[in-house]
């Protein structure tokens, strides 16, 4: 089925999320929609899927104008979507999730057997090996995504939209997803593939449309170079590689040995983890989201309750210390979710910049805030860290993701650090800010501080790291040099140790 979007415009108040976007997807074609976070890709797809109503423009399927009042209409017209955040009910079985919304059965009583049969049929067609009775919450993320695909196919979707489908996958799972997408294309489906990852675009796209600030800024061919695609996406030339010299080690040393973290449910989320980071080097912690990286960084800062093992910084034990004491030892921390844990959205930039220094001079004297000092500090930090804002009195919640992250970075790095821990430092950050944040991290390393960076983006991990530690199910699979081939790292992310590759065993 041929999909055509004509002049789609969607406004949220003063913000124009989609500005007269035109897009045509032919049957048997993978059409890639490339753009940064916040460029308006997801909004466009929500319009297509009937979740939002467009202010202007129309959607055509095989040259017929469609009017979608809700996702039900879009599905009935043959549009299927594989959502970035899976639209699956975790406590339901595969069959229940697939049948939800178009349940087989008579008189309102469910016919679970025919739903199971449908799941089996479709999964056999694509070689998925799915058990229709497995609960979603027990399945690995990659398998959950297949359930999403089956959900769309069970409704006979001819137009399939994949919204940032690779964010949660290992490189190998990504490759398999690409194969599935090609298979679907060859069977005649029209596929829209939304992403901001250049590597994937060039691998699978037949046509590429680039969006920036809600507008289509051009088409590109899959043979275009990374640099060309990136500059089209960002609107200026960007440096994609991180420049750093050979590490010059200082005396600083973070030593973690036998660390174990147990969560509330009694699961060992960090299991016997040991590593060392010397001052002046970056250790990147790679792995698929949810394999213990978050808990590891939180344990380093003293945010986890049930921690055993030992964390020493320059010979001093940190486990069992309060967060305040850990901070006072010179640990800087960029949390994974900055809007939730890193910043107070309603507070101004100046207030956020002194959040972790409210216990004494120079910011507080005799219990009173030193407003003049705070504001001077904030003005210099904003200038130094290139935070784009109208002033230091702007609530942090109004800033873009990249600028918010610069505020967090400024707050942490402007203290005297002896250890810097950054979890997902560039998630949801625009390419321009990524460049800046990477430079700051490398500068911190060059100042002789041990740096731990957690990233689920393998490209970022290899770019920043001197050594890479891969975690799987709470354990260290291996610690390897950053020059380790991508394939090896990908296998490590799936729990397969790098024995034959000569990596340093954990």
């Amino acid at each position, binding site marked *: 089925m041929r999909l055509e979007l004509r002049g789609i415009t969607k406004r949220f108040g003063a913000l124009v999320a989609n500005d007269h976007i035109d897009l045509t997807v032919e049957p048997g074609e993978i059409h890639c929609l490339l753009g940064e976070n916040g460029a308006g890709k997801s909004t466009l797809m929500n319009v297509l899927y009937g*979740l939002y109503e467009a202010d202007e423009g129309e959607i055509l399927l095989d040259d017929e104008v469609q009017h979608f009042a809700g996702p039900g209409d879009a599905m009935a017209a043959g549009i299927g979507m594989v959502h970035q955040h899976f639209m699956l*009910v975790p406590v339901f079985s595969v069959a229940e999730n697939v049948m939800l919304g178009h*349940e087989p059965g008579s008189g309102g009583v469910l016919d679970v057997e025919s739903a199971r049969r449908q799941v089996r049929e479709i999964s056999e067609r694509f070689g998925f090996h799915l058990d229709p009775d497995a609960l979603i919450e*027990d399945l690995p993320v*990659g398998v959950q995504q297949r359930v999403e695909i089956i959900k769309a196919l069970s409704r006979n979707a001819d137009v399939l939209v994949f919204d940032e489908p690779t964010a949660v996958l290992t490189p190998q799972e990504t490759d398999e997803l690409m194969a599935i997408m090609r298979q679907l294309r060859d069977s005649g489906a029209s596929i829209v593939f939304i992403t901001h990852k250049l590597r994937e675009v060039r691998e699978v796209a037949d046509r590429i449309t680039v969006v920036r600030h809600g507008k289509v800024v051009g088409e590109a061919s899959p043979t275009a170079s990374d640099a060309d695609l990136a500059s089209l996406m960002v609107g200026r030339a960007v440096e994609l590689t991180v420049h750093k010299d050979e590490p010059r080690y200082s005396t600083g040393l973070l030593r973690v040995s036998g660390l174990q973290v147990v969560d509330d449910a009694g699961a060992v989320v960090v299991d016997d983890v040991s590593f060392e980071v010397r001052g002046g080097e970056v250790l990147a912690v790679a792995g698929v989201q949810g394999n213990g990286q978050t808990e590891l960084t939180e344990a380093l800062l003293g945010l986890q309750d049930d921690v055993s093992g030992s964390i020493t910084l320059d010979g001093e034990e940190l486990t069992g210390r309060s967060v305040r004491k850990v901070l006072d030892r010179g640990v800087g921390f960029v949390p994974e979710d900055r809007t939730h844990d890193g910043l107070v959205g309603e507070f101004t930039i100046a207030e956020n910049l002194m959040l972790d220094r409210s216990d004494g001079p120079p910011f507080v004297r005799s219990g009173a805030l030193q407003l003049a000092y705070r504001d001077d500090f904030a003005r210099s930090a904003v200038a130094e860290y290139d935070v784009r804002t109208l002033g230091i009195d702007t609530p942090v919640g109004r800033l873009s993701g990249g600028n918010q992250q610069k505020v967090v970075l400024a707050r942490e790095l402007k203290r005297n650090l002896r250890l810097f821990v950054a979890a997902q430092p560039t998630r949801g950050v625009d390419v321009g800010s990524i460049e800046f944040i990477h430079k700051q991290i490398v500068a911190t390393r060059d100042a002789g501080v041990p740096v731990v960076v957690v990233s689920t983006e393998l490209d970022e991990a290899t770019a920043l790291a001197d050594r890479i530690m891969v975690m799987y199910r709470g354990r260290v699979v291996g610690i390897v040099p950053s020059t380790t081939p991508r394939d090896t790292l990908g296998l490590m992310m799936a*729990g*397969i140790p790098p024995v034959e590759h000569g990596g340093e065993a954990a």
Partner: protein
Amino acid sequence: MSAAVEAPDMPGTPSDGVEKRQVTQVGWKAAGGLIVIAALFALLLVAAPRDGATKFALSRGSDALQIPLLEIPAMPLAWSCLVLMALIAAISVARTLANRTTSIWAIAAFGALFLVGFLAWAGAGSSGTLSIVSLLSGSLLGAVPLIYGSLSGVIGERSGVINIAIEGQMLAAAFTAAIAGSVTGSPFAGLFAAVLAGMLVALVLALFTVTHRVNQIIVGVVLNVLVLGLTSFFYTQVLVPNAATLNTAPRFGSWTIPLLSDIPVIGPVLFDQAPLIYLMYLVVAGVSFALYRTRWGLRLRAVGEHPKAADTVGVNVERTRYLALLIGGACAGLGGAFYTTVAIDKFGLNMTAGAGFIALAAMIFGKWDPVRAALAGLLFGFASNLQNVLSVVGSPVPSQFMLMVPYVVTLFAVAGLVGRSRPPAANGQPYVKG
């Protein structure tokens, strides 16, 4: 990784040894609780031993099948119960030390033993008999509003709307049932009016929480207070002056079911009751079937767990929640009708007296499942009825203390025994599209 997935083509099939370990620490809550209760009971038996025998009656005078009165020496019976209780507590301690959980059946057996022992102690030497039939049938009657109320909670919360307003729904229902029954002279009219009243309160709840996305707990609490105020006002201003015409409700008599009601002990308890109780059996079974086996139930549960997922497959979240709250309101209406069509023939000030909140506790104790919630309702009903039975045999326990029992049982049940109880994931969260 789940054993359910046999996927040779999946990368990420880990070698053995990279499975995530589980180090569940079994808590001392269960074992500790059992020890404390056994110790307190032992203390009671030592400090206040009582002479004589306790008479247990297993049948009523009117029953076809008469079972002779059981007259058992009180202290030996109480002490044997205590010994068995201590044994279960010891097993529980041993299991906890071995990091294994205590089974719910062991706890139930412990509770039953404690109950028999306590009744034996309390009834010792009394001239009155402990009627097991009236103990149980009183429990069932006491449980009726709790069970209907908890169903209202289960249906609402499974769709993602916290229903604190059960109390208000039941009170409004009891009030309207009294008036409608008095005016028409038919308990069925009262029942019908009660269902409408319950649904009306539910409609207001839905309007504010679903359409206007006001905080669900606040709306629920406000509705309770509002209904209490309205019914109290109309009761003193209208019902009291016109008690003969507006507040003299006809009651359902019991419908004795032939054969079934002749079964010893449980026959008269379960099958010699008012029709509202028989309806309750059907409603519990029906809600359970509907929730797990029908399209309506699947969609309702999906909306309560992940409304956006439901929305993206074309399920109308708001409509589902409205419908769920209205059906729940009808259930609570039936529960409220119990007060003025079965229990007693007139409305009284605040006559539900917190039953809606106990129903809420029964829902949580029942882990948001209709059948388990009904069982929890029975337990709470039993706890409230115990006092009535003990006062008949002239128990030495002050009645004020026994009045406290149902609430203490509720508190312990919800806080301690419930284990891992997971509410629907989207419970309490208004749904915003997009």
